[in-house]
């Protein structure tokens, strides 16, 4: 593989459009999705060095790469994230762990430690003694991540040469080992390694600990392809499971809203049908009297008896029809078809408008009432007409909006699920 010796800033991962549907539903998964993009790019494995500044991160990288690629000085140095390619590996020097005044370090560090890295070298200078609280917290987090994603973390105690003697070094190393039980520690000295190479001094090289670290690193690098495959499967699996949980909840909400919608409609339909049957029964008595429909006969030129009978007929019809209207009105109010008087500006909400629209304004005769209330077809027409206005009522419209909202959410989740690649290699 040709070497790209130039230092460069790794590109910040643009959020590709293909995750848009997933991000709409699970915005907090943006880090995992960006990591999936890194995995999908299938570039060379990334080794990230992390730790406080001046603990010898850059110096260690230079030794591992056998080249002075990263600047070193006895003061704060690495502020920006720098990347270098060597021997089929991308080496990342993360900014110091320390909270910086500007706070810019954090963003770079996040990218280096979480987004891009396959292997982390956690670096701590021997002279600093035990890990402090911030370092311990980070190591714990990294080890938990190793457990989950199989990205490995090697703990490297640097600047071994800066300890008074082996006893002092041993005390520090065992104190750190107590702090992170079960983790392998690599004790190194970049200075010894450099000096040993330059002056061909084998003891210095051997006592530098670098060869051992290189062996461990080579083993870990060999495990990267398997770890990457595992991580991609893991992330996709987690995201899919989370989407399915969301989807189930949304489907349940939608089903329950639809159920409510149907139950309301059934209650309205059944109640109205019963009422219309009762009114029909009452009407039957009024309209089924023997003889011609005297109400249709004009008063003029009639016998007195006929005139009186016609008046009686009209009065009875008026009373029966008015009573029917009042009962219908009560039923409609109870189902929210009519709103309060002050809300009757809107056509759908107005009881009078609904009654007028359905019943008409004309004077009703015996034949009209029979047709409207006593015949199946007439009752069916009333049933359908009132149901139409029921659906236009405010509370029904509000419920419909909630159904539409729940249904849109479910569609979005289905789109997100469809956007997830099926297999482990995205």
């Amino acid at each position: 593989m040709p070497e790209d010796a130039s230092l460069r800033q790794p590109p910040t991962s643009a959020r590709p459009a293909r995750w848009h549907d997933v991000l709409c539903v699970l915005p907090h998964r943006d880090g995992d999705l960006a990591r999936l993009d890194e995995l999908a790019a299938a570039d060379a494995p990334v080794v990230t060095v992390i730790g406080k500044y001046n603990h010898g991160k850059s110096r260690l990288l230079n030794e591992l790469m056998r080249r002075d690629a990263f600047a070193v000085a006895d003061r704060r140095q690495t502020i920006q994230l720098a990347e270098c390619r060597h021997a089929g590996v991308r080496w990342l020097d993360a900014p110091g762990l320390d909270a910086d005044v500007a706070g810019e370090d954090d963003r770079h560090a996040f990218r280096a430690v979480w987004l891009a890295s396959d292997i982390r070298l956690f670096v701590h200078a021997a002279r600093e003694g035990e890990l402090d609280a911030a370092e311990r917290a980070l190591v714990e987090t990294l080890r938990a991540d190793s457990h989950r994603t199989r990205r490995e973390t090697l703990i490297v105690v640097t600047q071994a040469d800066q300890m008074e003697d082996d006893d002092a070094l041993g005390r520090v190393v065992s104190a750190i080992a107590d702090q992170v039980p079960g983790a392998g520690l690599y004790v190194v000295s970049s200075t010894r390694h450099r000096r040993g190479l330059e002056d061909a001094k084998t003891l210095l090289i051997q006592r530098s600990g670098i060869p051992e670290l290189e062996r461990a690193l080579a083993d870990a690098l060999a495990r990267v392809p398997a770890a990457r495959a595992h991580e991609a499967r893991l992330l996709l699996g987690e995201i899919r499971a989370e989407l399915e949980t969301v989807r189930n909840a949304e489907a349940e909400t939608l089903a329950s809203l639809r159920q409510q919608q149907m139950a309301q409609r059934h209650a309205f339909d059944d109640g109205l049908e019963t009422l219309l049957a009762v009114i029909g029964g009452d009407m039957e008595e009024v309209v089924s009297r023997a003889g011609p429909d005297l109400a249709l006969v004009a008063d003029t030129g009639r016998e007195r008896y006929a005139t009186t009978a016609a008046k009686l007929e009209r009065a009875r019809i008026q009373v029966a029809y008015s009573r029917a209207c009042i009962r219908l009105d009560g039923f409609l109010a109870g189902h929210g078809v009519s709103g309060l008087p002050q809300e009757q500006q809107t056509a759908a909400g107005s009881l009078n408008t609904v009654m007028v629209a359905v019943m008409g304004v004309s004077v009703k005769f015996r034949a009209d009432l029979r047709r409207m209330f006593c015949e199946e077809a007439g009752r069916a027409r009333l049933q359908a007409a009132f149901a139409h206005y029921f659906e236009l009522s405010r509370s029904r419209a509000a419920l419909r909006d909630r159904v539409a909202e729940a249904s849109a959410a479910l569609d979005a989740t289905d789109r997100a699920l469809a956007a997830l690649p099926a297999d482990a290699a995205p």
Partner: protein
Amino acid sequence: MAEVEAVALGSEDLRPALARLDDWLSSLGAGLVGACLSTAALREDSEIGRRIAAANAVIDTCISDWPRQRDALRPAEALARSLDQAVVLLVFGKFNAGKSSLCNLMADRFAAHGLEVNSFHLDADGRLEPCARFTEGAIETTSRIQGIRLGQRLVLLDTPGLHSATGEHAALTRRFVDCADAVLWLTSSSTPGQVQELEELAGELRRAKPLLPVITRSDRYEEDEIDGALVKLMRNKTTADRSGQEADVAERARDKLAALGLDVALLRPPLSVSVHMARAEEESLAAMASAGMDRLYAALRALVSPALAYRRRKPAEVRLRHLDETVLGGLQALLRPALEQLNAALDDATAQLDLRGTQMQEDVWRAIVPLLPDLLDAHAPERDADGVRRSVSQALQSAWGEARDAHFSDYRLGRDGQPAPFEPAPDIGFEEIVIEVEGTRQSVGVDATRLHAALEREIGDWVAVAGDHAREECAACLREVMADVARLDAVLRAHEASLRDIRNDLRAPA
């Protein structure tokens, strides 16, 4: 060292300032008790009611805690009295910053000059207990506050790391750091200038104590392989490396102080020392100088005079800090969030009033209007329109009660009267259907259409009026609580301002 011994320690009359601080505390107590939030407007089990109770509980807890907190201050005051004749330097830094080594070196140097040197540690009451010299090590060793008196005029106070793993050390340290007149910030040359440590010092620096950064352990081992063995040699870091680190620490510390809103003039130029190298060659003058100790002495001399300014008003500063951080800070930390949550709940409730009111009116309407057909049928034989209205009135009262409980159960309504009863004018009644039969008028039935329409209108009007009444009553309840919150907030603000005034007067140059 002779110069330090010769320092004259003045003092000023702090009794008026201390009296003002006492008055401030009693005024705060009285103000808070007088501004407790009323629970008259909303039920205790409502969200707002619970938040009101929580805010009142915070006030009670804080006030009843004051005597205990005042007692907790006494060890620090006792320590301040026993160190009255000395300038106290707080030696601050992480566990591995080399605090103990530096303190021990200075103790040895003072002793070598024939001055009396006493090590002590503090017991829980702030009394000095003599003890052996400090232990040194790469892992956390100091678990209590220890100090060294160097001659008569200088005390180094060595504290367990403020941000050490164990929180109790930090709490212990905070009890006594008030006694320090200036701060030495020790930061190891391996990772110099971990400025986040300064956050722990913000309280001290706000008291205008000067800050001297000391880059410790400014040395390194050089190794070589000679005849098959590793040979080690320790050296001072080079002047170039040292000044690079000093400039970097100065810049970062200045930025950090500015970011913390602190006076950057408190910051002294950082300097580098190597205790290890100073100890070499039996602490020869040359070894001391190249290890950076001469510069440290010069810096300490320069530190004494600004430190004296703090020392003169120390008793009042200790009390002021207690009132500011423990009393007022405690109140702010607990009461402000409680009041913010309460305000948020009040805003939510206000925003919901209209919708709730409308729903309540609709519920009543939907409960009452369906009753009309049967009521009209029942009273038609007697043509008893009043009877219908009486029944509607009763039904309205109970439907109203149910709707109010469903939508406004949080409020204590009806404190200034119920909505007016349903009593519409009885001008519209049942209509007789009368026809003329052979010259005489004769009733053939009854029509309720007009009465029904009138009743719907009357019910609508009543529901509208009663709904507005309930809404306005709820809004008044919320306004009452908001006014209470504003009153309490004003008490807090007024005392924040007056404590600031006392502080400014105290620190104003005489």
